């Protein structure tokens, strides 16, 4: 599908939210993305997995928080962080029936997704260990999806904390089809990609074509580790995925993922965490490759950071590194730590685990550093504020 022709409304000021291991920062940008002012820290010392501005109202912020000691919770602000109000009932697993599945406790909320445009106040949350939750009151109270969290088959696929990523196994990439509020996707690390067409009552698995680590059986869902899944805003029948084992594309109603990362330069590979899609062109995707060789350093290959872009759905890729350090920069960019705005040209934003925040106003052609010396960056999100 070609680039959509709809013209954009005049740009509004941007809010760039940065979630870190030791708090959150909000960067307010003008509509031209030239002037930024920093507001923070918020929640200094708290582990903030993500801060998201609700694109439906441009005012409501949700922050997923915990500390090294206190249990996980969600905070909400409707005045751009001047004041925060805690959730009355944060995401929490149900208590199992006697003799049922082992009890679990939410360690932290990892992922926040605003609900469908037709459902203001609805949000979805993904947790570690893997759990799916929904709020219908703007994040004040959260209800678990028993169809996922307490389903014996899902629980088998989720494995245990032993099977998960270093910060714990995660449910992430909760996607709401912009055409249909009941059409949902999510991913689990580990545990595959799943889809529902009835609002989450029932689920089907979408792992065909995805590869797993050598020696393991790809028909076993638990071995699948999608790092992030994104749906094209301009074509909701197209999904892209950055996986532990490559970059993929899926065109619905097809159910077989195509590994498009094999066209990446061999010395760079197609392993990484984040993936960003163009708001108006379903052929354009950006990734930020990580070294996935031998012991998986998960740093920029050869110590030379670069984003890569495809402009034709994955047939070819181009390197984008102008402005980044040319050598000896061993960056890690986590799956939620790279994002894009909806302006034209698209602005890109990424945060490193070494606390640097980088931006590009021209779709990755040139990069500049917006902030240094922040704590380890977990997530970067951007939206227009109203």
């Amino acid at each position, binding site marked *: 599908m070609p680039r959509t022709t709809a013209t954009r409304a005049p740009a509004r000021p941007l809010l760039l939210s940065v979630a870190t291991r030791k708090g959150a920062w909000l960067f307010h940008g003008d509509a031209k993305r030239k002037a930024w002012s920093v507001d923070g820290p918020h929640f200094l010392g708290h582990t903030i997995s993500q801060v998201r501005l609700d694109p439906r109202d441009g005012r409501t912020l949700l922050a997923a928080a915990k500390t*090294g000691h206190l249990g996980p*919770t969600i905070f909400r602000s409707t005045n751009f962080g001047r004041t925060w109000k805690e959730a009355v009932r944060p995401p*929490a697993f*149900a208590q199992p029936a006697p003799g049922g599945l082992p009890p679990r406790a939410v360690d932290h909320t990892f992922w926040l997704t605003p609900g469908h445009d037709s459902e203001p106040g609805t949000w979805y949350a993904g947790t570690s260990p893997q759990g799916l939750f929904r709020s219908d009151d703007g994040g004040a109270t959260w209800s678990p999806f028993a169809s996922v969290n307490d389903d014996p088959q899902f629980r088998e696929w989720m494995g245990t904390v032993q099977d998960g990523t270093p910060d714990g196994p995660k449910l992430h990439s909760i996607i709401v089809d912009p055409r249909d509020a009941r059409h949902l996707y999510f991913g689990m690390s580990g545990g595959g990609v799943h889809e529902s067409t009835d609002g989450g009552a029932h689920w089907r698995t979408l792992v065909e074509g995805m590869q797993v680590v050598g020696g393991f059986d790809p028909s076993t869902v638990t071995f699948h580790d999608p790092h992030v899944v994104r749906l094209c805003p301009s074509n909701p029948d197209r999904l892209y995925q950055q996986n532990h084992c490559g970059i993929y594309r899926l065109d619905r109603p097809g159910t077989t993922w195509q590994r498009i990362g094999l066209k990446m330069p061999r010395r760079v590979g197609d392993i990484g965490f984040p993936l960003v899609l163009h708001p108006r062109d379903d052929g354009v995707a950006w990734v930020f490759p990580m070294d996935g060789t031998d012991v998986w350093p998960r740093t920029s290959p050869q110590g030379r950071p670069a984003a890569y872009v495809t402009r034709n759905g994955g047939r070819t890729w181009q390197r984008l590194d102008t402005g980044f350090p040319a050598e000896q920069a061993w960056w890690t960019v986590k799956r939620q730590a790279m994002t894009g705005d909806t302006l034209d040209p698209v602005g890109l934003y990424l945060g490193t685990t070494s606390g640097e925040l980088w931006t590009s106003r021209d779709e990755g052609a040139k990069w500049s550093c917006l902030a240094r010396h922040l704590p380890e960056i977990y997530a970067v999100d951007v939206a227009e504020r109203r």
Partner: protein
Amino acid sequence: MKVLIPSALQSYTRRSKVEASGATLGEVLADLDRRHPGLRFRVVDEQERLRPHMRVFVDGRAVHDLDHALDPAQDLAIVMALSGG
């Protein structure tokens, strides 16, 4: 009974020492949550277990069981086991 509140939970209580009542540790924590909504879930998980790194002392003795019986004359201290960087 008197309850000593660690600094990380004083955003709920606004004070380091508060009053709460109950015949067991679980009841006292429930009463604390009534007086300071949200506090309990930061200390006790949804499976009724004290969270990791969260310690409770009664008159200086460590207590781990929410059913532990308490006397109103005793002092309760909630403490966080600081660790890591």
